[in-house]
């Protein structure tokens, strides 16, 4: 084990630190303004309506929640699978998991029709609802990850580290299964209602979480003028490539199985061919920017820290595109109430639902990222979260 003296303190560059806080604070302020505006005037001032009931806030919120559970994977690989390179990154991984979960949940709560009743959501549970189950998973996630971090920081409790690491690992798998099932259990809509949703969300979470981790880790090394060990960088980039490839594979399987069922072909045609912005978000956003380009960057010879970060940023952007396609695209496609009939009504039956988000919805979404950012920046400033590699152990492993 590296002695604690080898931790590098990030106490320098005070001005830049306050600058970062101010930047995050500005985004938070904008999000808070949007929140007050929506709650005062009602959702009529947003782009969401009775057809697109979940919009951009949910795209950001679900992305953050999925990525939060994925980012914990780094710690799990260290604690559960005993890899020293990842073990050194466990504290940062746990911190990011907490920060991103907090950001995602804040956005989700801020978009409720009655956010004043958050306490109702915490005290009334319909145990058949996967959504209620998610709320328990989310709050349990905070408890378990926080306790896990304690065992990493308090030497006297280090003995519990392994147990909590395992618990956190299984908890996060269950959590993402439940998150994917929010969509998987929607039997009525063509875009959802597939058991594949749960494992697919787990794979997505692996990719988005690791990408987020690599971005933060890269920034921290750059901030401290440190260079990440090339061996570690190579391992982590290869792992990201595997996750991105697996995400692409699941996406392909999902759509190919869907295409096989005759009743689903209309939806697939919409999404893959003539869905306008959703088709573009799928092919350009999810597949090209979030899948193929990162793979090219990661597998091209001579990977550098900059290139890995660039690939990670692309994976995150692709992830947001994927959530947009899944959440908004799935609602934009008309709900089939009478198969075999052309349908029209005053309630937008049978037409592709339009969605034009207002700036406040972007503000709310970015506010979630800003909250995660602020928590991370402050925590990294006051505590030792910079990975401390024990190169002797790494060498012994090879």
């Amino acid at each position, binding site marked *: 084990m590296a002695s604690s003296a080898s931790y590098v303190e990030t106490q320098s560059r005070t001005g830049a630190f306050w600058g970062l806080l101010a930047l995050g604070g500005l985004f938070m302020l904008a999000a808070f303004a949007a929140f007050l505006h929506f709650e005062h005037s009602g959702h009529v001032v947003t782009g969401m309506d009775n057809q697109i009931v979940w919009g951009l806030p949910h795209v950001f919120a679900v992305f953050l929640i999925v990525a939060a559970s994925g980012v914990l994977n780094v710690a799990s690989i260290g604690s559960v699978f005993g890899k020293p390179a990842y073990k050194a990154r466990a504290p940062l991984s746990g911190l990011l998991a*907490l920060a991103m979960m907090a950001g995602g949940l804040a956005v989700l709560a801020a978009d409720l029709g009655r956010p*004043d009743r*958050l*306490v109702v959501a*915490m*005290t009334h549970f319909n145990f058949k609802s996967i959504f209620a189950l998610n709320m*328990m998973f989310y*709050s*349990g996630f*905070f*408890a378990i990850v*926080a*306790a896990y*971090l*304690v065992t990493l*920081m*308090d030497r006297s409790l280090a003995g519990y580290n392994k147990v909590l690491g395992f618990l956190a690992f299984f908890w996060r798998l269950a959590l993402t299964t439940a998150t994917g099932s929010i969509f998987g259990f929607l039997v009525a809509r063509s875009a959802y209602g597939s058991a594949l949703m749960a494992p697919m969300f787990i794979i997505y979470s692996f990719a988005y979480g690791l990408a987020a981790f690599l971005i933060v880790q890269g920034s921290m090394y750059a901030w401290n003028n440190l260079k990440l060990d090339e061996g570690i960088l190579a391992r982590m980039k290869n792992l990201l490539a595997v996750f991105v490839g697996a995400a692409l594979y699941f996406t392909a399987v999902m759509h190919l199985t869907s295409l096989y069922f005759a009743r689903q072909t209309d939806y697939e045609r919409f999404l893959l061919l003539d869905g306008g912005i959703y088709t573009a978000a799928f092919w350009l956003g999810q597949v090209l920017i979030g899948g193929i380009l990162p793979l090219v960057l990661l597998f091209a010879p001579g990977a550098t820290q900059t290139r890995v970060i660039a690939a990670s940023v692309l994976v995150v952007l692709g992830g947001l595109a994927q959530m947009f396609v899944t959440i908004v695209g799935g609602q934009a496609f008309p709900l089939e109430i009478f198969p075999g009939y052309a349908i029209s009504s005053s309630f937008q039956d049978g037409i592709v639902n339009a969605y034009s988000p207002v700036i406040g919805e972007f503000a709310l979404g970015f506010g979630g990222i800003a909250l995660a950012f602020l928590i991370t920046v402050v*925590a990294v400033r*006051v*505590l030792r979260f910079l990975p401390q590699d024990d190169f002797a152990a790494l060498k012994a492993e090879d």
Partner: protein
Amino acid sequence: MRAIAIAVLWGLTLVPAPAFMAFAAAQAAEPGRTPLPAIAIEKPGQCVEPKDVMRRDHMKLLKHQRDKTLHQGIRTKPHSLNECISCHASQKTGSVTGAGGFCQSCHDYAAVKLDCWDCHQPKPGQKTAAGVKP
């Protein structure tokens, strides 16, 4: 610093606990002046329960009745919000809210926020009786 951080993290483990209950107590009061309650009983007579029971427990009675009405279809009159309103609405404003309103004046004084009126009509209205086309 480290000890504080560990304490904060331990605190986080309590997130699932009803720490959230505190939010309920944080329902903010109206700022500004503190007007004394002006409880005007315009229709003299006996309320559905003795005065001290009503003062102390009207919210419990209302909540009990609300759940029975909504979930079981029990529509007895004595503890129904609409019956309160039809008896206690001000003859001037026709409402239990607003300045001097039966509900609002006391709730302003006690600094207990009412969100009944987000959904419920504070004025007694033309009830559409069963089977009648208005």
